Each structure stands twice: as structure tokens, then as C-alpha cells.
């Protein structure tokens, strides 16, 4: 069936064909990676004596996980967590509401080009700016407090949800949408009957996921004064109150676990 003869191959060694067939490129990439790694590692100066000194503190911190202190700063923790939850809920709701029209606009198969470009621009801007940087700017503009945190997370939610929603719409089954359009429906009816049922389960799943992310993010907003538990956590670390810090981290971890569990149930239900 081919020109390859058994006699030619017998007795020859066999090697796995390399991933990159061009040897120059292969070795070039390999050497470049090696050089980078050496340079990068060398440029990180680790103050080992400081690290060694810190190890005992690290152990103290790990130990405090088994003996967390929820009480001595109980009010701070309670207020902080409550504020984090409030920011999370409010920003997720507002973020979802705004990201639906933007997501529709950012899907090339249903939006006209100018709308598409504007919506994609908003998405790109929201995704490129780190939450913490947005929070810093908003705190500078609106003053300290949960409003800045709420606005930050709403804005971040838009970039996340609208992008994924748009991608989902772009990948939907065209035939179903066409069938609805063929009935003579209006644009809103078409979205409602032809598009919405296809993307709804994923939208709900993503919203739950975003709720989870927003809660985790809301825990750091306090570091820059945008409300939530972060301020308390920061103070705890500054004062080396590891037992209080451990308590806060445990609350965050447990909340995230509960949220994940809930979102698993909800996602299983809608799909």
C-alpha cells in the first residue's frame, strides 16, 4: 500500500516524533525558555534570613486556623461580612441586569455593527481593568464606603457576564432561532422564544458563578477602602492578629463552599 518497506524499518531505532518538527525553532524556544527561567529566578532576591524568621510566624498562622478567634473582634467581623454580602448581592443583581442588554448587543449574529462595537468596547474595558484598580479610582471619586465597592463589582460583572453571554448567543443553534423568525415574530418575541430558551440555563449557571466570584472579590475591596470585610482583615494582618485573620478566612472559605454547593444544585436543576 505504500513505498515504506518493512526491511528498511527493521533494525532501525524508533523515536517519538517531536512536538515541534523544525529543529531550529524547537531548540530556539527551549534555550529561550531556559535563559528566561535562569534570569527570572536570579532576579528574585529572597531574603532567606527574613523568610526563616517568618517561618515561625507562618506556623503560628497555620496553627491559628485550628484555633480561630471569632469573638474578640466579633462586631467588626459581623459588620464586615454583612457588608461584603450586601455588596455582593446588590452588585450581582445590577451587573446581571445591565449585562443582558450589553451581552445581546455584543453578539455579532443578532446585533448591528455599531451596537456590536460599542458593546464589545464596554466589555473589553471592563475586562482589562483589574477590580482593585477600578475600586481605587472609584474610592477617589465617590469617597470611602460600600458604594464604590458596589459600583466596582457591578462594572466587573458586566465585563464577565456580557462576554460569556455574547459568546453563548453566537454559538447557539441557528435553526431554532430561524424557525421562530419564520413565524413572523417581532424582534423582542424572537429573542424571547428563539434565543432566550437556548442561553438561559448557561446564563443562570454563569450568574451563580459570578455571585461566587463577587463574594471573593468583595473580601479584598476593603483593602482600598471600598467597603466589606477586607478592612478588618487588613487590620488583623497588620497587628499580627492571626487568630482573627484565620477566623475571617474560614468564614470566607465556608461561604464560598456553600455558594458553590448551591450553585451546583441550581445548575443541575436548570439544565
Amino acid at each position, binding site marked *: 500500500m505504500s*513505498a515504506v518497506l*518493512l526491511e528498511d524499518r527493521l*533494525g*532501525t*531505532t*524508533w523515536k*517519538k516524533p517531536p512536538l515541534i518538527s523544525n529543529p531550529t525553532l524547537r531548540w530556539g524556544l527551549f534555550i529561550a525558555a531556559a535563559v528566561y527561567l535562569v534570569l527570572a529566578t536570579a532576579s528574585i532576591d529572597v531574603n532567606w534570613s527574613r523568610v526563616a524568621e517568618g517561618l515561625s510566624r507562618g506556623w503560628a498562622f497555620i496553627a491559628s486556623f485550628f484555633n480561630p478567634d471569632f469573638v474578640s473582634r466579633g462586631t467588626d467581623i459581623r459588620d464586615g461580612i454583612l457588608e461584603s454580602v450586601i455588596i455582593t448581592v446588590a452588585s450581582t443583581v445590577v451587573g446581571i441586569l445591565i449585562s443582558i442588554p450589553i451581552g445581546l448587543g455584543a453578539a455579532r449574529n443578532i446585533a448591528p455593527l455599531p451596537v456590536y462595537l460599542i458593546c464589545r468596547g464596554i466589555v473589553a474595558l471592563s475586562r482589562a481593568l483589574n477590580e482593585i484598580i477600578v475600586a481605587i479610582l472609584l474610592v477617589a471619586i465617590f469617597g470611602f464606603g460600600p458604594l464604590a465597592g458596589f459600583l466596582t463589582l457591578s462594572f466587573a460583572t458586566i465585563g464577565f457576564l456580557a462576554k460569556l453571554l455574547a459568546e453563548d448567543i453566537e454559538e447557539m443553534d441557528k435553526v431554532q432561532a430561524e424557525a421562530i423568525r419564520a413565524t413572523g415574530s417581532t424582534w423582542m418575541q424572537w429573542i424571547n422564544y428563539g434565543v432566550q430558551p437556548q442561553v438561559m440555563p448557561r446564563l443562570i449557571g454563569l450568574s451563580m458563578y459570578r455571585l461566587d466570584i463577587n463574594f471573593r472579590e468583595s473580601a479584598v475591596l476593603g483593602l482600598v477602602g471600598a467597603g466589606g470585610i477586607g478592612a478588618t482583615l487588613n487590620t488583623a494582618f497588620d497587628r499580627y492578629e492571626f487568630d482573627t485573620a484565620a477566623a475571617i478566612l474560614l468564614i470566607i472559605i465556608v461561604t464560598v463552599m456553600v455558594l458553590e454547593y448551591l450553585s451546583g444544585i441550581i445548575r443541575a436543576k436548570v439544565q
Partner: protein
Amino acid sequence: MLELKNLSKTYRTGDKALQNVTLTVPKGQVMALIGPSGAGKSTLIRCINRLVEPTSGSVILDGTDVTALGSGALRKMRRKMGMIFQQYALVERLTVMENVLSGRLGYVGFWRSYFRKYPQADVDEAFRLLDRVGLLAMADKRADELSGGQRQRVGIARALIQNPRLLLVDEPTASLDPKTSRQIMRLICELCAERDLAAVINIHDVALAQMFVERIVGLKAGELAFDGKPVEMTEDVLTNIYGEEDWHATIREVDDEDAEAEEPVA
């Protein structure tokens, strides 16, 4: 050579997949195992090399009780049993050659296999087998680039490079078109004859089984329901195994078979 004694398997769900199956396969015999879906054909084959642990009974290969072996000895025993799968079960992202050589895993150490440094004798044998199944030119192609029939041939080569005494073949043709199915069945039977291998072939295409094998065993709900030569396979027997249906066409097909000229597989 292969003896099954009172082999039973009950799954944790309570399904009795096999009940007291007793069977002997002599050296060099190619035996087909037929039966409806869920009759326990796959379970039977997997109990032989203990990919599925039998609940009770024993499997004896060349005088050794496979069911009594510890994990190290079981691995050594598995080398003697080549297995061919329905969905080919090639490691899709490895090359054809690596897939064939993976049949030698039971013989080489971990690091040797990890760095793909197989003994030259194994490499030569792999080339010979690939040549025999007609895929020598494909040695360095990735398995997912091959067609169904070609993949199954790689699967056959992988089973044979183990230098087995017995082939366990699970629905080799279920994913193939009719012509390729015949070629694959013919190849398996020829190779068994060349190497004097015994084989247990699960198959639900009864006509295809009758065409190639010397003995047919029927399973029904985990129990033996038929054991005989292909010619003894009558409509009554099929009705007993599969249930009421017009079997006439299925059996007749066997008679008109050999007219078709097929290209040689190798």
C-alpha cells in the same frame, strides 16, 4: 487452555451479569460469544482478565487460577491475554507506533516506557506487526488521524505485540461498516490461525460470527444458552437467545456470503 468454572458476577446495583458460567476454550480455538445487549458478554470478557472482578467462580488459564492472583502476578498474567476493544480504545493523542508499543508495557519498566526507550526487538516486532496489518506507513501518525478500520488494526497490533496466548475481543466490528467489519474479522481469525491463538470474540452480528468462527456460545441473561458449531445455529436457537423475531434472513445471509471478492487486508 482457558477454563471458566462457575463464573458469576453480581454488580453492586444487584444486577446479575453472569451466573455460573462454565466453559472451556481449547488452544487455538476461535470462539464467538453472542447474545443480546446486557446478556453479560462484555462482563464475561472483562472477568477473564479481571478488568471486572468476578464475584465467584474461577478463571483458569494454562493451569493458573487468574482469580487468585495478586496485583503483580495479575499484571504478568494480563500480558498473556491480548484485548481488542469495540471503540478501538487507542490512546488517541499518541502516535500509532506508541500505541502498538504500549502493548509491551507489561514487559518493560516504567522509566523505559516513559522515555519511549523500548528494546530494539520490541521496535522491530512493532514494525513487523504494523506491516502485517498494512499500516507501516502510518507509524508516526497520531491515532486520531486514522479511520475506524485502521484504528482497529492498530488495536489488533497492540494486542498481538503482547505475544499473548489468548485474545479477548470485545465487539470488534460494532463501530465499523459492513465491509471493514468482514476485513477485520478475517484479519483477527487469520492471525489467530497463524499464531495458534485462542480467542473469545464478543459479537452481536450473528451472520458475521457464523462466517468466520468454529464455535459459537450464546449467552442469555448471564447464563449459557447455546454452545455449538455455527451450522447448529438455527432459528430456534436464535429465538431462544434473543426472543421472537423472523430470523430467516439473518441466517440465510451466511449462505450467499463468500461470493464477494475483497481486497486483501495486508
